[in-house]
């Protein structure tokens, strides 16, 4: 089972090899989807973790002890349903089919959070500003 989460690093942890520890010490399978790390700022990393690999709970405890905040990705990606008119402009740039038109009869855009990797390609393409990602 894959789980996408956002790791928030306080500025003092930027020079720590946290990902290395997750892999090496706890045996997690880590796939980095996006990351923004810069000196003296909060770092943010979107990662995909295999829940059934490694010592999951120990890894989560380690992150909590060191001060890394873990949030589910779903909370970060907002789709303003009321703004969407189903023009489907987001469908062709979306690389993971998180935004797709599964039923060609209704032609309704459906957003599958599980597939979203927060790549942000849909944000500017949407003419109605219906997609928002909180990744500050």
């Amino acid at each position: 089972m894959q789980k996408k989460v956002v790791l928030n690093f306080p500025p003092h942890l930027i020079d720590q090899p946290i990902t290395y520890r997750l892999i090496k010490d706890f045996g997690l399978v880590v796939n980095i989807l996006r990351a923004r790390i810069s000196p003296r700022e909060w770092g943010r990393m979107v990662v995909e973790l295999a829940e059934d690999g490694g010592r999951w709970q120990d890894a989560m405890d380690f992150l909590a002890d060191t001060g890394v905040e873990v949030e589910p990705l779903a909370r970060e990606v907002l789709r303003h349903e009321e703004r969407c008119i189903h023009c489907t402009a987001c469908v062709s740039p979306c690389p993971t089919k998180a935004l797709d038109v599964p039923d060609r009869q209704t032609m309704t855009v459906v957003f599958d959070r599980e597939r979203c990797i927060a790549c942000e390609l849909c944000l500017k393409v949407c003419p109605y500003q219906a997609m928002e990602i909180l990744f500050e």
Partner: protein
Amino acid sequence: MANFQVNKTYQEINEKIKQGKAVVVTAEEIIDIVRRKGEVAAAREVDVVTTGTFSPMCSSGAFLNFGHAKPPIKASAVKLNNVPAYAGLAAVDVYIGATEPAADDPLNKVYPGEFKYGGGHVIQDLVAGRTVHLVADAYGTDCYPNKRLEKDITLKDLPNAVLCNPRNCYQNYNCAVNLSNRTIYTYMGPLKPRAANANYCTAGELSPLFNDPYYRTIGIGTRIFLGGGVGYVVFPGTQHHPGRPRGENGVPLAPAGTLMVLGDMKKMSPRFLVGVSLLGYGCSLAVGLGVPIPLLNEEMARFCGVADEDIFAPIVDYGTDYPAGTGRILGQVSYATLKSGKMILDGNEIVTVPLSSLVRAREIALLLKEWIEQGRFLLGEPVELLPTGEEKPVPSFSHES
């Protein structure tokens, strides 16, 4: 005058509408009826076919009269939420155009520009009942001494607000691809290099002018659904080109007819007038528009029976051909194929995306059907039909947006 087996008049149909007896179906529903029963029986059975379309329509805007101030002003430069409106009209009349960006928009200086707020958004804010900040500057005259006016306006407080769109409701449009080697940002949306995606922009069989290809029932005075309220066709739209090539069924194979439409903005809804931000291109307004088509005879039933597989869009390269105006058409593709979500171009399968909302086009056709069935909406008989011919020959292609 052709001899028809079915002959109905606007008056007869309106009488049935008033009595709540008119039979109304949508442009999708009529297809099956014509196929099963034939065009004569369909024309006998059905009185009105409702159509609908909802998509960005750039040539749109509104005349607003914002009322006289004390002391009075002859406004010469007006901004609404910092979006310039044309003020070269009398003293307190302006025209806010859909594609006008905010005065401080960085445009394409930071490429591709985002164009987050413009005239279309002002119109949407007004119909949504939101307050819009108006700033008017003037040079001052003896009769209008005021030189600056700032106030918050709302739609209900404006003396007049008239949506007046010089060109809406295109009869067919290009299917855009990009054969160049870089991503381009167009009014047809972002197009990936080497024809990796194709964007089109009509509602196909639901779209008004596909169902009356020769404008036999549409002209000056046709009453329509406009922006959630009632509007009228007031003239052929700008760039109305009925002379473009047509298929055997009469449906144009390139962008052809257009409508100029008008209606009372105070009765419209933000669901059907939505501000648009097109990446790297600009601002616009998505307009919901539906035209009722009376089945006066079996010929109109045949026209309304047109289905997506009988309607074709020209495939145009927006990477090189379109900006250079070469007029090259890469091929024709049916709306049935476009709506399937993929098409084949040069042996490669590519994703097709409509910028037009089929979801909302259907909603419009169904709403208009409901209005007519309930006797709340009568047909307007045109005092003059739209022209079907051209004064000068036109090229077979269009590089007009």
